[in-house]
């Protein structure tokens, strides 16, 4: 409880807590830099001291209880501001997906959050201790406040049930008071919001392309106007042109509804292009974080530099990259 109070006064996650457990001794606002993480000062455009925070995660540790125990996420601090796009970059096995699942309480055995707090700061001022939620409260929280779109999401639509029915299911579960007419109106509205013809409510998922289906999934994630959307590689399986369209759509919706986005991917160039802030994860730790500008132009950590150099520039010089064909 007291910890939450402290973080609200000083939402400065850019100076993460020390990793070891002496958090009792060190106050959160003490500017002690984690030896492991390289951080940039929070000078993002228009940032002010009272920027509105939507989720605070502190000292999150997640283990896979297998033999031997795998520490997937180690002492991660993360603050997500209202309406921002936070890019979470990292390679397979770095713990980025596990972290996102942890924040949304979606971990399944053998994964277990062994330590840490996750606090959701609701729009109306309430603070919700996410880890204490149980049963109906948890279910309501999951789609109402925080929704999720993951990589294979488009394949999780039931192919033999019409889009309409699947959208209605969200409403009947979470908004029991809604009438059929209201639901129909809302379903059509949602589809047109994500750039899908509203008449597609009559279609079956198999009649839609992969990109369309992923748009429908985003519409479902949007249905209850959540304050945070977690997107785990939402476009990785799609072609670049389709991917771009969808990302543009996400950014447009964010401007309209003001939800925050945690965008998880290994595609650092794409993250840099679209995110407000970027955190780079490696082996369960956030090794560097900062605004996209800072990460792009002034990366400090070796790993970030390595990731950046892994993507040859499309239009730039033919540098030292592959095939020194010319100097042969």
């Amino acid at each position, binding site marked *: 409880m007291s910890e939450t109070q402290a973080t609200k006064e000083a939402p400065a996650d850019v100076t993460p807590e020390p990793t070891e457990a002496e958090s009792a001794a060190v106050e959160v606002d003490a500017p002690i830099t984690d030896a492991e993480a390289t951080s940039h000062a929070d000078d993002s455009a228009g940032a002010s001291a009272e920027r509105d925070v939507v989720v605070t995660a502190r000292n999150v540790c997640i283990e896979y*209880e297998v*033999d031997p125990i795998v520490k997937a996420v180690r002492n991660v601090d993360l603050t997500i501001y209202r309406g921002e796009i936070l890019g979470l970059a990292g390679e397979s*096995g770095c713990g980025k997906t596990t972290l996102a699942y942890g924040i949304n309480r979606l971990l399944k*055995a*053998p994964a*277990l959050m062994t*330590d840490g707090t996750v606090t959701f700061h609701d729009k109306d001022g309430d603070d919700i201790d996410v880890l204490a939620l149980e049963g109906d409260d948890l279910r309501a929280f999951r789609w109402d406040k925080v929704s999720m779109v993951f990589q294979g999401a488009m394949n999780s639509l039931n192919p033999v049930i019409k889009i309409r029915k699947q959208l209605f299911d969200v409403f009947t579960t979470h908004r029991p008071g809604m009438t059929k007419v209201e639901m129909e109106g809302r379903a059509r509205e949602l589809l047109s919001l994500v750039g899908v013809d509203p008449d597609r409510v009559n279609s079956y998922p198999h009649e839609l392309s992969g990109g369309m289906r992923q748009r429908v999934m985003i519409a479902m994630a949007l249905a209850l106007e959540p304050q945070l959307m977690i997107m785990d590689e939402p476009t990785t399986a799609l072609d670049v042109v389709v991917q771009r369209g969808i990302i543009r759509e996400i950014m447009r919706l964010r401007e309209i509804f003001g939800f925050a986005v945690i965008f998880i991917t290994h595609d650092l160039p794409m993250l840099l292009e679209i995110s407000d802030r970027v955190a780079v994860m490696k082996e369960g730790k956030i090794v560097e974080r900062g605004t996209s500008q800072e990460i792009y132009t002034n990366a400090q950590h070796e790993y970030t530099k390595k990731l950046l150099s892994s993507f040859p520039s499309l239009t730039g010089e033919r540098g030292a990259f592959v095939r*020194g064909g010319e*100097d042969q």
Partner: protein
Amino acid sequence: MSDVATTTSVPPADPAEVDKGKDETRRVRRPVNGKFIIGATMLSLIVLFAIFGPIIAEFDPRNSNNPVLVPPDSTHWLGTTSLGYDMFSQMATGARTSLMVGIVAGLIAVTLSILFGVIAGYVGGLTDEILTLVIGVMLVIPGLPLTIVISSLVPGRSGLLVAVILGITGWAGAAVVLRSQAQSLRNRDYVSASRIAGEKPLRVIGVEILPNLLPLLTGQFLFGVIFAILGEAGLSYLGLGPTGSISWGTILNEAQAGGALTRGAWWWFVPPGIAVALVGCSLALINFAIDEVINPKLRSAPLEARRVRKAKAAARAQKRADRAAKRQEAKA
């Protein structure tokens, strides 16, 4: 020159890659499975009995010069039948026949299902359609009636013949599974790769595809054995079993004909019944154990759930202790 440059630009000790390699290098440990131990122990006891039983037995199983319907005692360990046969000798000789029938029929069934299923799945096209038709026909013909018809048409059935009959009537189900498996394997990249390397079709099937079907084949073989032993017992019970030889099924048949139940001679029908049940049970247990090895989720899910529960409890205790410590500090 440039060679040197490029080789250095590809450091073999790429840290990320090496780390990952190390992680994945750890061999998946396969803890010896409890089900497997129990099943294998039961099965080996039965096999040992089949091998050594007839040697230990003092009486000829066909010798009817014994007292009739004696309950188990020190001379006749399992009693005698209404014709004066020694039950222990009968059981021991029957074990050999029953196991032989089971194994031979299982082998035949697996061979046929590979022949039809895997080839149909791998080759595809017209071959597939013809073979699938045969599989389909075999599948819809009810097995037991067909076996009964075949058995009743053949005079003088040996144990081997019964095994062959059971084998050729019991492979179609397995073939269907194998066909779909082979169909999915044939589209794997490693199968394409071996075709591109220039491997001949038979070698592709034998070396690239079959080994990956091995767990499935073992399961099907065990199932085939169970099916055949039960089938043989069933046929014998109906009087259509091997003529002239003794099996657990024929003992049951004679017990029924001799009115063992009404005369209260439990030692006549209980041992063969238990023996058949034990073989089925042991093979089924081994089969389950193999299933768990193929599909690690079956094995690890309960274990992991337990570990998570334990870790959760520990974490809770830790938190309580921390909070107490903090309170103490605050006070001080």
